[in-house]
C-alpha cells in the first residue's frame, strides 16, 4: 500500500482524529457507564465503525461528534438492554423493583462540562490503587491515544506485558468500585501528587532516551508536556501543576544542546546555550511565575501554614536525565534522581492543601530556571540555586538533594565550602553505591589541588557506574590527576 493510496491517507487521518477526540470520548463514556473497561470498548467500537465507514463515505465534517454519537448509541443500547432485563426481573419480583431507581436520562447532559469528565479520567488513570507501571500505561492509552504497541516500544517492554497491565488495571478499578469523582480538599492534593508523578515519570522516560533508541521514546517528552499542559488548564489554581509544566518545558528546552551529533551526552555547563529553545524557556518561566504567584496567594490565605506540610513527602518524583544519559557529575545535576522508593510505590501524602513554601515541582522548576536565565555558565545565580535546594531539602529531605546543594554551594562559595557538605554525606547509607558522590568529591578535590585524593575518588566512582561512557569519562579524569606532581597537603 503506497503512501499515495487514498485508503492509507484516510487511515492516517482517522488516526489523527482519534488522537484528538479519543480522550474526551472515553472520558464522557466513563461517566456514562461508570466502567472504564466498558468505556474504552465502546470507544474502540466507534473507532472500528469509523475505519469501516469513513474510507467510503469520507471523513465527516464533525468527526468528533460522529464518534461520540456512535459510541453513545451503543452505550444507550447496552444500558437499555440491562434496564429491560431489570424490568423483566421487576415483573417477576416486584418487591425488588420498588427499590430500583428510575432509568437515568443519558441523552441530555451528556456534553456538559467535558472538561470535568477529562479531569475525572485523568484522576482515574492515575489512581494509586493501580500499580505505578499500570498508571503510566493506562494514562498513555486513555489520554494519549497511544496503542499498546507504541507504549511497549516507548518503555522497552514487551507488548503483552503492557496489554496485561492495562487489562488488570481496568479490572482493579472496576472491581474496587473506585468512585468516578474529582477528588476534593486534602484528598485532591494527594491524588494530584499521583497525577503529577505519573506525568513526570513519562517525561523522564523520554528524557533518558539515547540515540539509537526507538524513535518513539523521545516522543514521551512531548506526550508528557501535552498532558501537563492539559492538566494545568483543568486545574489552573493548583500551583504544582504549573510547576511541573515549567520544569518540563525548561528541561525540554535543552534537547538540542544535550547531545553531540553522535549521541554523546553534553553536561549542562558545557552546553551551547544558543541551542537552548527560547520559546520553551519563555513558556517555562511563565508557568513558573504562575506557580509562584498561586503559592503566594495560598500563603496569603493561610498565613499560619501547617507544620505537617514539611513532613517528608515521598510521593514526589525526582528523576534525573543526568544519571541515565551518563552525565558525569562534578557538574550540577540537571534534574533529580529517582529513588527506589518512588518506583516501588511507597507514598506518604501531605495532609493539608495549604503550603508554607513552594512545592517540590515548582522548586525544581525554579532551579532549572536559574540555569535557563543565565546566558553563560558564569552568569548562573548559584546562591539562589543553593537556597532553592535548601528549601527543597526541607520538603523532600534526601541525601541526593543535599549533594546537589553541595555542588551549588561549591560554585557559589568555593570548593571547600562544597566539600564540607559532601563530607557529611560520605557515611550516608543511601549513597553508598552512588557514583555521583565520589565523582563530585573528586571534582572538588581537584579544584583544591588535592590530586592524589581526587584520583582515588574518580577511580572509585568509575567502579560504581554501569554506564560505559560515564566510566570512561571518570577514568579519564582519574588519569588526568596523575599528571600533577604535587606533594599532598597536610589537611
Amino acid at each position, binding site marked *: 500500500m503506497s503512501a499515495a493510496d487514498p485508503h492509507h491517507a484516510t487511515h492516517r487521518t482517522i488516526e489523527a482524529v482519534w488522537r484528538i477526540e479519543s480522550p474526551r470520548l472515553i472520558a464522557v463514556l466513563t461517566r456514562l457507564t461508570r466502567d472504564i473497561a466498558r468505556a474504552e470498548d465502546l470507544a474502540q467500537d466507534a473507532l472500528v465503525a469509523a475505519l469501516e465507514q469513513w474510507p467510503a463515505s469520507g471523513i465527516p465534517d464533525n468527526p468528533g461528534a460522529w464518534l461520540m454519537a456512535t459510541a453513545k448509541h451503543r452505550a444507550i443500547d447496552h444500558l437499555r438492554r440491562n434496564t429491560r432485563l431489570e424490568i423483566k426481573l421487576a415483573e417477576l419480583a416486584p418487591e425488588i423493583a420498588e427499590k430500583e431507581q428510575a432509568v437515568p436520562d443519558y441523552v441530555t447532559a451528556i456534553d456538559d462540562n467535558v472538561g470535568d469528565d477529562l479531569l475525572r479520567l485523568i484522576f482515574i488513570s492515575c489512581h494509586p490503587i493501580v500499580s505505578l507501571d499500570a498508571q503510566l500505561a493506562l494514562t498513555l492509552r486513555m489520554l494519549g491515544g497511544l496503542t499498546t504497541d507504541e507504549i511497549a516500544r516507548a518503555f522497552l517492554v514487551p507488548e503483552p506485558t503492557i496489554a496485561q497491565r492495562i487489562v488488570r488495571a481496568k479490572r482493579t478499578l472496576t472491581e474496587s468500585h473506585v468512585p468516578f469523582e474529582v477528588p476534593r480538599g486534602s484528598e485532591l492534593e494527594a491524588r494530584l501528587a499521583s497525577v503529577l508523578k505519573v506525568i513526570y515519570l513519562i517525561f523522564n522516560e523520554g528524557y533518558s532516551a539515547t540515540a*539509537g533508541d526507538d524513535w518513539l521514546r523521545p516522543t514521551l517528552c512531548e506526550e508528557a508536556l*501535552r498532558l501537563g499542559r492539559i492538566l494545568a488548564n483543568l486545574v489552573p489554581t493548583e500551583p504544582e501543576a504549573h510547576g511541573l509544566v515549567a520544569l518540563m518545558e525548561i528541561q525540554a528546552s535543552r534537547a538540542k544542546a544535550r547531545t553531540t551529533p553522535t*549521541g554523546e551526552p553534553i553536561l549542562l555547563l558545557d552546553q551551547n546555550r544558543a541551542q537552548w529553545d527560547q520559546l520553551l524557556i519563555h513558556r517555562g518561566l511563565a508557568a513558573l511565575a504562575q506557580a509562584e504567584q498561586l503559592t503566594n496567594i495560598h500563603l496569603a490565605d493561610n498565613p499560619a501554614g501547617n507544620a505537617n506540610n514539611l513532613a517528608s513527602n515521598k510521593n514526589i518524583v525526582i528523576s534525573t536525565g543526568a544519571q541515565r544519559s551518563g552525565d558525569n557529575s562534578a557538574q550540577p545535576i540537571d534534574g533529580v534522581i529517582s529513588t527506589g522508593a518512588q518506583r516501588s510505590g511507597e507514598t506518604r501524602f501531605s495532609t493539608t492543601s495549604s503550603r508554607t513554601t513552594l512545592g517540590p515541582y515548582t522548586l525544581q522548576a525554579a532551579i532549572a530556571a536559574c540555569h535557563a536565565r543565565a546566558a553563560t555558565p558564569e552568569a548562573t545565580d548559584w546562591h539562589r540555586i543553593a537556597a532553592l535546594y535548601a528549601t527543597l531539602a526541607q520538603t523532600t529531605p534526601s541525601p541526593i538533594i543535599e549533594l546537589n546543594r553541595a555542588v551549588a554551594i561549591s560554585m557559589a562559595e568555593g570548593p571547600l565550602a562544597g566539600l564540607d557538605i559532601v563530607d557529611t554525606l560520605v557515611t550516608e547509607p543511601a549513597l553508598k553505591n552512588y557514583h555521583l558522590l565520589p565523582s563530585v568529591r573528586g571534582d572538588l578535590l581537584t579544584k583544591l589541588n588535592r590530586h592524589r585524593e581526587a584520583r582515588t575518588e574518580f577511580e572509585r566512582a568509575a567502579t560504581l557506574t554501569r554506564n560505559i561512557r560515564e566510566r570512561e569519562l571518570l577514568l579519564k579524569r582519574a588519569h588526568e590527576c596523575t599528571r600533577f606532581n604535587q606533594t599532598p597537603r597536610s589537611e
Partner: protein
Amino acid sequence: MRFMVIFKATADSEKGALPDPQGIADMNKFTDELVEAGVVLGYEGLHPSSKGARVHFSGKNRTVIDGPFAESKELIAGFYLWQVKSLEEAIEWVKRVPNCSPTGEGEIEIRQVFEPEDFAYAFSEEGIQQEKNLRAQLAAQAAKR
C-alpha cells in the same frame, strides 16, 4: 513534531482591517480549545506589510525595500506554532479554524519545524547505518518487481 501554521494575508488584512468582533471571538474560542488540548506553543499576529520591510541580497549588495508588498496571497498575516503527533493531526486542527474571512476565502499553510533529532539522526552512526539499510531494502524491493 512541531508545525508552523501560517495564516495567509488577504486584501483586508493588508489594509489593516481587523476581523469583526464575532470573528475575533470565534478565533479566541478556537485558540482556547487548542490551548486546552496542550497543542499550542505560541502564536502571533503580524502587522500589515505596509509596516514592514524587505532586504534583498545580491552578492555583497543589500537593498532595502519598504512595504507594502503586492501579492497579498503570498504574504503572512500571522502564525501558530503547534506540537502534534503528525501532519495529519495538524491538518485536522487547521480544518477546525473558524472561517473569519469576509469573502469566505482564505488559506492556511502548514510547515513542519526541524527537530534536533532530524539533525542528530542524519549524523549519528546508527542513523547512517539505518539509512544504508533502508536504501538496501528499497533496492532489493525494486529488483524484485
